[in-house]
């Protein structure tokens, strides 16, 4: 985008950065598609109407803080509007690396701040925003039923649940069998009972040494 002022000269002053505007549009589309999969989240979004939340992504290069990219999020009843610029101070600023922010927004509201995330401003707004994103619970079976009908979606949902249960059981069995093989067949690992007895022995030995050390110190004081 070229800017022309009264002198007819081109300059980049004050012009909104093109990639940031395009990225804001992409982020808005992705966020709102996600929010609309859980209609309850739009109710939480509506409750934040009028608040401005700045989310700043900090890209680290070789361990040092590198370029930053800020987005301004304006929640409302129909989703979240994302802007690349906002001329006033936001209600809350949330900044961190993309990974840290992803961890932050995936966890529940009661779990505090993820490592590497910094929050400045109105903590109530930050908490409500965390609840908005962290509380998204998508009913995939319901979403699927819109495409293929209730009956098939229910069958598919039941099949997926059955597969997950089977998978969980299979994983548990695999771990048990692998542990038994390594402990009892190859004897590469000690049985869990022997390991516990060994660790108890180490603890007892440490306590005995501590007591012995204390007694030696007392005898030294008495002699000295």
């Amino acid at each position, binding site marked *: 985008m070229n800017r022309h002022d009264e002198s007819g000269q081109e300059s980049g002053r004050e012009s*909104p950065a093109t990639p940031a505007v395009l990225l804001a549009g992409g982020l808005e589309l992705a966020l709102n598609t996600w929010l609309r999969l859980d209609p309850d989240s739009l109710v939480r979004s509506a409750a934040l*109407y009028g608040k401005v939340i700045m989310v700043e992504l900090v890209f680290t290069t070789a361990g040092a803080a590198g370029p930053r990219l800020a987005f301004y999020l304006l929640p*409302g009843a129909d989703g979240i*509007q994302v802007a690349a610029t906002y001329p*006033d101070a936001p209600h809350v600023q949330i900044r961190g690396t993309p990974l840290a922010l992803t961890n932050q927004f995936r966890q529940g509201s009661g779990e505090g701040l993820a490592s590497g995330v910094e929050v400045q401003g109105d903590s109530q707004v930050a908490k409500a925003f965390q609840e908005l994103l962290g509380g998204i619970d998508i009913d995939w079976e319901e979403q699927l039923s819109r495409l293929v009908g209730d009956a098939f979606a229910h069958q598919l949902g039941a099949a997926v649940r059955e597969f997950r249960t089977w998978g969980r059981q299979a994983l548990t069995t695999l771990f048990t069998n692998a542990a038994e093989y390594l402990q009892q067949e190859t004897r590469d690992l000690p049985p869990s009972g022997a390991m516990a007895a060994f660790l108890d022995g180490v603890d007892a030995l440490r306590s005995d040494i501590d007591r012995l050390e204390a007694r030696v110190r007392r005898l030294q004081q008495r002699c000295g």
Partner: protein
Amino acid sequence: MSQDKPDKETTHFGYQQIPAMEKAGKVAGVFDSVADKYDLMNDLLSLGVHRWWKRFALDLTGVKAGQRVLDLAGGTGDLAGRLVRLVGPNGLVVLADINASMLAEGRRRLTDEGLVGNIAFVQADAEALPFPDNTFDCITIAFGLRNVTHKENALVAMQRVLRPGGCAVILEFSHPTAPGLKPVYDFYSFTVMPLVGKLVANDADSYRYLAESIRMHPDQETLRRMMAQAGFERCEYFNLTGGIVAVHRGYKF
């Protein structure tokens, strides 16, 4: 700039010369015809790029919470819907359009989206704005100015209702500046646009008018000078997509 200062009897309507008094009625006919498919056609004809153009324009407004904004020729409420979120519950957005069909479409759409309370709808002529002096912190007009009969009168009216310190942002089709773009753009707008208009909205004539009216609209520099003549200061413009669209911004101090 003859097309922007027509003589007393005639003005342009696309490539035709018509009596000035008839232009508003003819433009109304075009928009009555396209109102219900306006957003779909915008998406089709611009391949969705009009959304990015509007985003750029909004970023240039600098609108913030609590302000009053006038969205002129606001049509189906694309810009107003986003402005409502920017001004927040304590601000006000006035969506004005001369065309009742477009205004009704905008009101229906924004109400459906739950955008109520801090938005008002006014049927108004951009040349004779029914607001007191120094009312708005910002005025936007997206793809509307070229349909106004006397653009200079509209610019003066906009400057009058703007508060000192406020700015007007005009998003409008303009003249391609990128090398080699003009022939491609001409083919697209005079062949593809009427064809898509006929297929989707069954109305090739309205879309041919839109293409012609874009050609008759003043170029970037001319519009910037017109803004300065209307009393705007620090006038500037930003070319988008090779100059197919330009965003003009001017302040009132």
